[in-house]
């Protein structure tokens, strides 16, 4: 009797492929395409309820007559945020992920052909989540993380990646400070420990505190890359 022993061979293959490589490549193309149009893209990340949409509503009011903006809204379900932005007279597109906890560059890429090429700012409101969105480049030029005072002053070190990868930190709802045990200096110093280059804005969408500083920062950031300034 003859045994058929199959002579399998094994081959090792060095791949060295970035698992987010496809997303990064699409993001780089988006960043370049928007820059070519002099459009500054801003990725807003935070936990749900930190005030991303409220901040955008205030920016819509205060940027009126100074700069043109559009908004891409990311949520798991509903058009609610896009409707709030449209009510301000601002073009807005809602991406509903149907369960996914973050936006990816390819989702932004699908919206781009609809954009008015004459806008100055594209704000992308990420899905409310302080963890997963931090891993996905959306082709933004500025990444802003929001932290609201009711969430607590211990968050930067608990969710480091959102803070280490951001350009600016917008502390929101500071009108509530009188009612909360929130140590503003602790948050600032812990966030700066993680990311010494982080710009920090202390804001309230209700009183308008700090919004002008944030707007000045956004306008400066855009000015720094405009080709025909």
């Amino acid at each position, binding site marked *: 009797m003859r045994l058929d022993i*199959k*002579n*399998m*061979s*094994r*081959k*090792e*293959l*060095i*791949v*060295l*492929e*970035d*698992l*987010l*490589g*496809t*997303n990064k490549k699409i993001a780089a193309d988006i960043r370049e395409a928007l820059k070519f149009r002099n459009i500054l893209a801003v990725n807003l990340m935070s936990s749900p309820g930190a005030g991303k949409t409220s901040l955008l509503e205030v920016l819509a009011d205060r940027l009126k007559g100074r700069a043109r903006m559009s908004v891409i809204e990311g949520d798991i379900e509903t058009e609610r945020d896009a409707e709030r932005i449209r009510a301000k007279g601002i073009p807005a597109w809602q991406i509903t992920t149907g369960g*996914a*906890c*973050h936006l*990816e560059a390819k989702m932004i890429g699908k919206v781009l052909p609809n954009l008015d090429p004459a806008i100055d700012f594209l704000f992308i409101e990420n899905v409310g989540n302080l*963890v*997963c969105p*931090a*891993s*996905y480049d959306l082709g933004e030029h500025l990444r802003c993380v929001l932290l609201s005072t009711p969430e607590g002053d211990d968050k930067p*070190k608990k969710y*480091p*990646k959102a803070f*280490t990868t951001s350009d600016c930190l917008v502390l929101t709802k500071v009108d509530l400070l009188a009612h909360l045990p929130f140590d503003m200096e602790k948050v600032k110093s812990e966030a700066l*420990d*993680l*990311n*010494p280059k982080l710009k920090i804005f202390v804001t309230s969408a209700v009183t308008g505190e700090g919004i002008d500083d944030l707007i000045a920062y956004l306008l400066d950031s855009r000015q720094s890359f405009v080709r025909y300034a």
Partner: protein
Amino acid sequence: MHELSIISALFDTLLEKAREHEAKAVTRVKLKVGKLSGVVPELLESGFDMYKKGTLAEKALLEIEVLPFSVRCRACGIESEREDFVFACPQCASTELEIVHGTELFLEKIELETD
């Protein structure tokens, strides 16, 4: 929980490589995952086990090497690990640093079975 979307990208690559090399099966998969990559190795493992069923990688062994967050100081030249992710040199407190490891999230190598 975005690990499933990472695993889905991993399988796109695995199956493409397997086809390219006319492999019968993928037998080993080695990933490098930094502490600041934003993914949890255990969740990658569960996602891998879920995804591999019925594919060429059904019997594949997944290895994940976790890399600590480490920085090199441009001021004093010292390389150090920072478990707390604080972006400052533990020797001289300079914040002029380059990240050496910790942000990795890549497929290093695979082993294929051919005949």
